[in-house]
């Protein structure tokens, strides 16, 4: 089965979506078509600009090093699809509000929109935000929602390391290991990806 067929199968499952949004999947748009879709009107609940913002934030969390970063892995597109199709409505709102908070916090710190910031400004802003996020997560009650940046960071890491780039370049991908055994490991070797 190729990807298009798979997405068509998936589209059967999501038809009749309760989201009240034009789900990407419901229209049989594959990942390859997402660029085109993105240039038009965004993905699911996300505008084109929001997806671009997600990609830049994700790429600051997971930048290109000797392997491609989160933007190359289309992490922003993935997050938009995932939040649009899988989050409960209240969590969707919280996530989108989080993007507004991120812009507000960025302006307060740098005087600029995130997209207008230099790479250094983005790094410094998100590093501080991460410290705040960690402190908040520690002090919050269990039933209280996560800090918005915690959610963005978690989705970024998940989206990246399960993307083709993340799973096959940042990690080692062995489709058919053929055995299970303990082998030697030396510091610096990449971890094996899931599947």
């Amino acid at each position, binding site marked *: *089965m190729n*990807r298009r*067929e*798979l*997405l068509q199968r*998936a589209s059967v*499952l*999501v*038809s*009749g*979506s*309760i*989201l009240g949004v034009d789900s*990407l*999947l419901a229209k049989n748009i594959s990942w390859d078509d997402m660029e085109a879709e993105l240039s038009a009107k965004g993905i699911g609940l996300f505008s084109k600009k929001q997806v671009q913002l997600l990609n830049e934030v994700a790429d*600051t*969390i*997971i*930048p290109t*090093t000797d*392997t491609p*970063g989160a933007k190359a892995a289309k992490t922003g597109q*993935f997050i938009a*699809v*995932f939040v649009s*199709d*899988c989050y409960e409505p209240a969590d969707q709102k919280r996530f989108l509000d989080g993007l507004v908070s991120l812009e507000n916090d960025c302006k307060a710190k740098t005087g600029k929109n995130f997209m207008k910031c230099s790479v250094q400004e983005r*790094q410094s802003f*998100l*590093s501080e935000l991460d*410290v705040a996020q*960690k402190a908040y997560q520690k002090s919050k009650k269990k039933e209280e929602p996560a800090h918005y940046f915690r959610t963005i960071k978690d989705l970024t*890491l*998940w*989206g990246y*390391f*399960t*993307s*083709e780039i993340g*799973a096959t370049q*940042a*990690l080692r991908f*062995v489709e*058919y*290991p*053929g055995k*299970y*055994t*303990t*082998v030697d*490991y*030396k*510091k*610096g*070797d*990449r*971890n*094996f990806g*899931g*599947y």
Partner: protein
Amino acid sequence: MAEKYDAIVVGSGISGGWAAKELTERGLKVLLLERGRNVEHVKDYPTATTKTWEFPHRGRITNAMKERHPVQKRDYPYSEFAPDFWVDDLDCPYTEIKRFDWYRGFHVGGRSLMWGRQSYRWSPWDFESNKNDGHGADWPIRYEDLAKWYDYVETFAGISGSIEGLPQLPDGKFLPPMELNIVEKDVAARIKAKYEHRRMIIGRSANLTVEHNGRGSCQYRNLCSRGCQFGAYFSTQSATLPAALATGNLTLRPFSIVTEVTYDKDKKRAKGVRVIDAETMQSIEYEAKVVFLCASTLASTFILLNSVDSGSLPDGLGNTSGQLGRNLMDHHFRCGASGDVEGYEDKIAFGRRANGFYIPRYRNFFGDKREYLRGFGYQGGASREGWQREVAELSIGADLKNALQEPGKWTIGMTGFGEMLPYEDNRITLDKSKKDKWGQYVLAIDCEIKENEKKMRKDMINDAAEMLEASGVKNISTYDNGSYPGMAIHEMGTARMGNDPKTSVLNKWNQMHDVKNVFVTDGSCMTSASCQNPSLTYMALTARAAEYAVESLKKGDL
């Protein structure tokens, strides 16, 4: 005129596949009825080779999927990775008098396609447990009655495992075992040194570690529950169905919902079954000399409760004991402990093992006496942390990325699987206030874990932590995520075996006391639950019952 067969087998999962194989190989013309769609081996495993990144939601379920799967969504098996193997809950509802998670798959192969594949014999002690402590009816068979059938089904199915010589977990006819990894081996050695009767062994799994009977060996992808293109784990499709079809004696009919066993009250025999075609809604009758119910624990008993012979059997077929529907059991689990393992940084596991370690039951054995009855085993594993781990000292950027590209420390964890006693008031009944998509009444399930299980859970948690501590594991934490019946997908009972027709539904051959040409060989026959995964025992009981049925037919006794 109804079509006639020598035998009808209802359900094509683990038990039904075995019944079809054994009956056809002994020369019977068999009709195998499956309520769901056909699933052809390999061809109908659409996601068997799909990469994670090719799933739009990387395996998670969407809101639209949740809408039609309010039960299936409760746990991980229902995912985007193979959603078509799980039922549409809205089409076939049931009533939860108390919470009961019922995971089902309506298709040829049933849950043999998605099962966990852990395959353990029950021990001589398991078959004596009811007799010894007085809970539930005594089993009408002993381990010795089943031993050669365990040999038989293991030899055909292909079970990998290690020879251990443990009285509470008999060895079998195993393919080579999978490996414990280096950390598990060391922990196993420490447990063995510290505790006389506790052993950590490699799980015994229906995954082929070598080619077997024309089926390929496991490729260690750990994607079993999507269907395996190598046929490297036991399923109806990979193993029993091809054998049954090869005889030329099998007719497989998907989309055939059996609503009742038809009854000849003068002869006190089943005539056959009534079926609703799931696609056309047409009602069809089939006749046979013998009927094997293998529709799954709850579904087989539903059929019997629903077989009222137009009112002459108001309590259902074969229910003069009043035990039909009673003594529903599952395993209780989802509690245990985990921790960090220091060292071994120069080692890593290669491959994805669809298996783990197993610690067989030791409580209330070997002279041990607890404040609860029966006991539990553990399943678990050790591995190095991946990108999911929290790296407290790093925030964002290249350093974080570089760190997460490498494996983290080793961790180890284990989950207890505890025996649930048979309780008469843990039961299923027909709920006539509701109907499913096909116009049938639904089941009402009234089942809970009780004090004995709750006391046992304390040991399941504390013992896990204690064994890890004794093995040098650090930062140990315990957990209890709560366990509702059904969650372990090991539902058993509701048509129990027993010697006394007044207190049991089936005799020692899985044959109904009241209706001699009806056999029930899936989990509903179970008289107690043990703490080992039950499917291997269903296989052995089914093969044994099939031989008996054919011999009885030949002798003219049926």
